[in-house]
């Protein structure tokens, strides 16, 4: 087992990894930017190293400084969390070249699954359905238009390096296609320094369902069932839950088995997520893989009882999984609400500054993952998520009742948050009945705000 792990992240996920390490008796080194100097979770680390000013590109994205910090602190492994460098195969390579184990998959697996075109290729070979599309990068607007007519409008333009909805456009005819191609290319180049685009058939009103996988270095691959993340705003997940309220048993089983085939085909190790669009009850398409731990991983931890961060660390240290597929028996229903410091009444504008009042809920079936507290100053420089509020109860109905009372208890001021929006969602029939798709919230918000 590792002696000392460097945590190359900040905020709640840094704290999450710190907690797992402390429980495992592994020492921790936590890097921080000057903006995060006073963050209280740093006190829980055995050692902290300042790696640069607040701007992420000068600190949390600065791979050289992070590896240098691991070297001076004698860390033998590094946990990247999510975001920042977590999906950088180059960073994983650099860590391992410096004899610091990157807690994640191999760089080859990250490259193969991180690139959407090669991931699609892999899916086809593994007999996992994908959304019909351009089968490769778009060569020219004319090429795109020919493909789009073949697929049938509407079509979706996507960036091969994309994420978080950037570069994505829906075109409903040739004219829109040509205009949007140009916009998407520009956006994608700016965001990812990669203008590669591809086309997909636009799936109407899909659910977003993903399968959590863990795989060790001895060939054991186990799925930890699915998470439903259909409650989104602009491709940003707001609520995640397990089990999915919109799948029948056969489709659930098909998704999980597909994820395992993909995982094995890619020679994937450590924790990863395979994302699918589900249309209707039966149709499903693999869309992409996330080669890292995800924000919403606690949902799976609650229903399976498996600690995913500890599992990641054990796998990276070369240990076997220690459980087989038959040992995984999900219990009850878990739901997560992302609490963001944003003002839903003002276009979800981030709400930075000091949190004067932070009174979270508690009690039976409640889990809270947060790095903030009364007096915490939210920096405008980073992601606006300040807490993940989760509930786990015997049934989805009870979990919803529990989440409602939790949201009513949760009192944050003067920071504007998404708590009020969650309160509204948990009163909506469509949510309670599980009848919603990835576009539901935006259609509803367009009416309400």
């Amino acid at each position, binding site marked *: 087992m590792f002696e000392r792990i460097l945590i190359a992240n900040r905020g709640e996920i840094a704290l999450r990894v710190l907690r797992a390490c*402390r429980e495992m008796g592994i020492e921790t080194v936590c890097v921080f930017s000057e903006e995060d100097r006073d963050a209280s979770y740093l006190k829980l680390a055995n050692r902290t190293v*300042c790696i640069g000013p607040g701007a992420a590109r000068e600190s949390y994205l600065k791979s050289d400084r992070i590896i240098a910090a691991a070297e001076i602190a004698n860390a033998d492994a590094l946990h990247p969390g999510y975001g920042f460098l977590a999906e950088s195969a180059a960073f994983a390579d650099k860590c391992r070249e410096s004899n610091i184990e990157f807690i994640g998959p191999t760089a080859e697996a990250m490259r193969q699954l991180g690139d959407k075109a090669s991931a699609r290729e892999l899916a086809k070979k593994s007999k996992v359905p994908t959304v019909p599309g351009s089968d490769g990068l778009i060569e020219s607007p004319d090429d795109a238009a020919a493909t789009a007519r073949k697929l049938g409008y509407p079509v979706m333009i996507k960036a091969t390096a994309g994420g978080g909805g950037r570069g994505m456009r829906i075109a409903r005819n040739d004219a829109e296609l040509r205009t949007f191609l140009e916009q998407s290319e520009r956006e994608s180049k700016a965001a990812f320094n990669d203008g590669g685009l591809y086309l997909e058939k636009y799936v109407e009103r899909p659910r977003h369902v993903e399968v959590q996988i863990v795989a060790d270095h001895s060939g054991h691959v186990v799925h930890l069932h699915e998470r439903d993340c259909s409650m989104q705003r602009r491709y940003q997940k707001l609520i995640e839950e397990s089990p999915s309220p919109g799948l029948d048993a056969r489709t659930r089983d098909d998704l999980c088995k597909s994820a395992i085939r993909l995982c094995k085909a890619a020679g994937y190790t450590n924790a990863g997520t395979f994302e699918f669009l589900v249309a209707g009850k039966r149709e499903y398409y693999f869309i992409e893989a996330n080669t890292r731990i995800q924000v919403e991983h606690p949902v799976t931890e609650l229903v399976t009882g498996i600690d995913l961060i500890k599992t990641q660390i054990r796998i990276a240290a070369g240990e076997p999984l220690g459980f087989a597929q038959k040992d995984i028996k999900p219990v009850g229903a878990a739901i997560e609400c992302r609490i963001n410091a944003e003002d839903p009444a003002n276009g979800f504008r981030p709400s930075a500054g000091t949190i004067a009042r932070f009174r979270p809920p508690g009690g039976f079936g409640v889990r809270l993952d947060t790095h903030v507290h009364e007096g915490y100053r939210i920096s405008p420089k980073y992601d606006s998520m300040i807490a993940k509020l989760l509930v786990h109860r015997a049934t989805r109905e009870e979990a919803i009742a529990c989440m409602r009372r939790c949201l009513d208890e949760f009192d944050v001021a003067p920071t504007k948050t998404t708590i009020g929006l969650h309160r509204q969602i948990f009163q909506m029939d469509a949510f309670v009945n599980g009848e919603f798709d990835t576009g539901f919230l935006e259609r509803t918000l367009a009416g309400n705000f």
Partner: protein
Amino acid sequence: MDIEQVRELVQLMVDNDLLSISLRNGTEQITLRRPERTGPPHVSYEPMPAIHSMPVHPASALPLPPAPAGSKPVETEADAHLVAITSPMVGTFYGSSHPGSPPFVHSGTAVTPDKVVCIIEAMKVFNEIPADVSGTIEKVLAVNEQPVEFGQRLFLVRPH
């Protein structure tokens, strides 16, 4: 106004939680200021517990420098006119080019902005760090072969 009167004024401030007092009387003038309190930290409390569950060295074993990168004014009383040369990277500090060689600079050395004052090794690369300021080295703060973090103060310089 004698020292006893000042002492009384200070006591008055402390007892009543004043931020500042400014008094002028003819040619006599006195200004006293106390730090503004922000939030909970001013209640004295048990510190965050040491980490029991494992052998540890304390959190933030590295000194936490208040100054950001680059050279900038030092704020303590004694060093009122000094500037600090801070580390622009994370790595290991070397005061000389080779073990046994004389140090690049020591207390009293005059430096120009381009003058190399130390080497910081990070990821097997040895980076020469220039003074970035003209003046005289007052004090060497970093310890040879010890790790330094970003923004850590390495030298104090009396600028010319």
